[in-house]
C-alpha cells in the first residue's frame, strides 16, 4: 500500500510564482518528514525537513506547512526560479533516527522563465 502520497505528479509554474507541492500520509505514528530534491542525473538530496511537533518550517524560499490532524503537509517554494526545476520527494519515518524512510512517488516541478 502507498503510505506516502504526493500530488500533483507534475507541476509547471512561471518564474517568480509560488509552487505548492502536496503530500499526505496514512500512518499517524510517522513523526519526521523530510523533503528531498532531485535534479536529473543526480541522486536525491535533503532539502528541508519537519518534525510532527511543529506546524511550519522555513528555510529561505522553502516552507513546509504541516497539519497533523489531517495527516497532510505541503512544500511551498516562493519566488520560484528555473533552477528549482527538479523532482521533489516527500518522505516519512517514525523518528529522526528510524532506519526505514518511506518515500512518495515525487512531484516533477518545471519552472518556466
Amino acid at each position, binding site marked *: 500500500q502507498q503510505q506516502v502520497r504526493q500530488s500533483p505528479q507534475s507541476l509547471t509554474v512561471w518564474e517568480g510564482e509560488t509552487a505548492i507541492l502536496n503530500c499526505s500520509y496514512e500512518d499517524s505514528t510517522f513523526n*519526521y518528514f523530510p523533503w528531498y530534491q532531485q535534479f536529473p542525473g543526480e541522486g*536525491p538530496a535533503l532539502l528541508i525537513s519537519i518534525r510532527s511537533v511543529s506546524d511550519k518550517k522555513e528555510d529561505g524560499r522553502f516552507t513546509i506547512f504541516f497539519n497533523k490532524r489531517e495527516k497532510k503537509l505541503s512544500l511551498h517554494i516562493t519566488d520560484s526560479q528555473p533552477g528549482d526545476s527538479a523532482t521533489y*520527494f516527500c518522505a516519512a519515518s517514525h523518528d529522526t533516527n528510524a532506519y526505514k*524512510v518511506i*518515500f512518495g*512517488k515525487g512531484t516533477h516541478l518545471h519552472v518556466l522563465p
Partner: protein
Amino acid sequence: DMKVTQMPRYLIKRMGENVLLECGQDMSHETMYWYRQDPGLGLQLIYISYDVDSNSEGDIPKGYRVSRKKREHFSLILDSAKTNQTSVYFCASRTGDQNTLYFGAGTRLSVL
C-alpha cells in the same frame, strides 16, 4: 565533503547475466541502503544494511542480494538478471543518530 560513490554509472547486461553494483562512502556511516527508482514509482527500498554483515530486506528484495564486508562498502548483486530489473539504482548512507540520507548519483542498469 561527504560523498557516496556508485560504480558503474551505466551498465548494460543481457537477461540471465549476473550483475554487481558497487557503492562506497567516506563518512563511516553505519547504515546503508539500496533503492531503485522507476518512472512514476518513486524510490523503492531493496535492502538496508545496519553495519558489516548486518543486512535486512526492504520492500522489494526479491531477485536481489547484498554484501557488506566493510563499513564503507555495500554491494548489490543480481543473480541472473531479468528485464524487469532495468532501473536506476541508488545507494544511500546515513549516520546512526540522524535521519539524513546521503545518496549517490545512481547506476542506470539496462537488462536486455
